[in-house]
């Protein structure tokens, strides 16, 4: 080098332009990746905001399925699921369960008879330290075919434009199948009489590494007794929680875990499309709900029943929902846990 670093050099602009360009390009690339330059990107934030009622979300509560009650119990696996998945949860044995019965509404104070869809969140842990979480509903299909369509549905149903829903339905006839179920399927007066469905398709991976596209359901042992929504309303706004508490304290409630295996060509990427009724099913065991606890200090309160928390032996499929749900549930969880001062809890931490 001809110059000593100690002797000041004449000022040159070039290097500063290079430095500014490097820093500037890096900053813009970062902003682009973060979505700040793409206001049309469907973000978890937008999707979750779309669920909020006109007055804004109920702070401290789940952004959807906000009304619910905790349960604990076991999954008694019979070993038959092991032909499809190597997960320990299918090996014959008894595994502890934490779960939550819930109503598909953003309002934690909604009256039971006002909410058509009921759900169940479940977390099953096995001795190998792995965990399987799932959030399922009683509808046989989902109202939308893709997360984007679901966002479209939320936007249309919140819209002040009287034609918004008509336009949505015209563009998404699959919604009519859901509407058909919502209008015609009988209501029941108990969480214990509902069948809960994964709707989303996943892949079971067996010992040999082979992948099997499947869906699963929990089928109640209790006989469903139909009730008109008007009669349910007469029993009080929180009847379902009172009923399940009494029912379980009188005797544990059971569901059969049924795995349905897809035939080649069945629509795995679309939870709005049911699979034909004759598909092969496997009974993998029994869910036994042994105890009900209120949500406020219960073991389900601080759990996010993220459907992508899966043991090795189960993976996501080409169904785009689990990814979108995981992103949205995480956003909802972050918000509600940060708002815990608004939540009517009675002690500081959750029981584990």
């Amino acid at each position, binding site marked *: *080098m001809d*110059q000593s*670093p*100690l002797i000041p*050099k004449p000022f*040159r602009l*070039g*290097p*500063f332009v*290079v*430095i500014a360009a*490097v*820093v500037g390009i*890096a*900053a813009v*690339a*970062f902003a682009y*990746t*973060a*979505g700040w330059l793409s206001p049309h*990107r*469907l*973000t*978890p*934030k937008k*999707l979750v905001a779309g669920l909020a009622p006109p007055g804004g979300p109920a702070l401290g509560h789940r952004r959807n399925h906000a009304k619910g009650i905790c349960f604990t119990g076991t999954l008694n696996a019979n070993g038959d699921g092991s032909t499809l998945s190597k997960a320990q949860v299918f090996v014959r044995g008894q595994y502890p369960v934490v779960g939550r019965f819930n109503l598909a509404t953003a309002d934690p104070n909604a009256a039971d008879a006002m909410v058509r869809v009921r759900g169940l969140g479940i977390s099953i842990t096995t001795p*190998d*330290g*792995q*965990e399987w979480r799932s959030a399922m509903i009683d509808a046989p299909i989902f109202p939308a075919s893709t*997360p984007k369509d679901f966002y479209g549905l939320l936007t249309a149903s919140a819209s002040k434009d009287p034609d918004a829903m008509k336009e949505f339905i015209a563009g998404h006839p699959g919604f009519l199948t859901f509407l058909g179920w919502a209008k015609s399927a009988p209501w029941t007066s108990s969480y214990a009489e509902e069948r809960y469905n994964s709707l989303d398709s996943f892949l079971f991976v067996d010992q040999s590494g082979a992948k099997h596209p499947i869906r699963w359901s929990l089928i109640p042992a209790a006989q469903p007794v139909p009730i008109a929504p008007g009669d349910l309303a007469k029993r009080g706004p929180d009847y379902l929680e009172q009923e399940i508490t009494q029912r379980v304290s009188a005797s544990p409630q059971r569901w059969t875990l049924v795995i349905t295996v897809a035939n080649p060509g069945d629509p795995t990427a679309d939870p709005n499309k049911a699979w034909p009724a004759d598909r092969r099913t496997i009974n993998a065991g029994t869910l036994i709900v042994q105890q009900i606890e209120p949500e406020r200090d219960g073991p389900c309160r*601080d*759990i*996010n029943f*993220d459907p*992508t*928390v899966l*043991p*090795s032996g189960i993976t*996501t499929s080409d169904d*785009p929902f*689990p*990814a*979108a749900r*995981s*992103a*949205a549930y995480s956003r909802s*969880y*972050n918000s509600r*846990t*940060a708002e*815990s001062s608004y939540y009517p809890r009675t002690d*500081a*931490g*959750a029981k*584990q």
Partner: protein
Amino acid sequence: MTTARTRFTAPQRLLHWLMAICILSMLFIGVGMVSTVTPKYLTLVQIHKPLGIAILVLVLIRLTLRLIYGAPALPAGLPEPIKLAAHLSQVILYALMIAMPIIGWAMLSAAAYPVVLFGGVHLPPILPVNPGLHTLLWHAHYYLAFAFFAVILMHVAAILFHKLVRNDGVFETMAPVLTHDRSE
């Protein structure tokens, strides 16, 4: 702590550049994943966790090497405030490289998520489940990530300044190959 060497040792240089790539990837993966609902979300999350833990392991090795081998002295003619800034920025970068992965891991623990690295391999929780702790750590992970990116940009700007304006040999201390006719 300084050494008479004019360059960082080869393992230190290797770790610096390997980790630079990993950390920049982590920052982009992080902001990318929390802004999408497409299946990319899951792929990015599945990279973010193990890569973050790998960074934690690597930075502990790097810190040990730094304590053993030290660093080449900064150029004698460098003004004192700049020397101080250089030292301070190194301390901050090390602190962030260690803190970010631990905060990520602790944040998932406090939220009752299993910390799955790959397949059946998962880490134990390092905190009890607690919404208050989760919120604190979640905010820390978020704000420190942006601080990290800002400090890296300053670091890069400073190094380019040394190279392009002063050409005082600071870049050469870390250059992967010799770009300057000095010898070890």
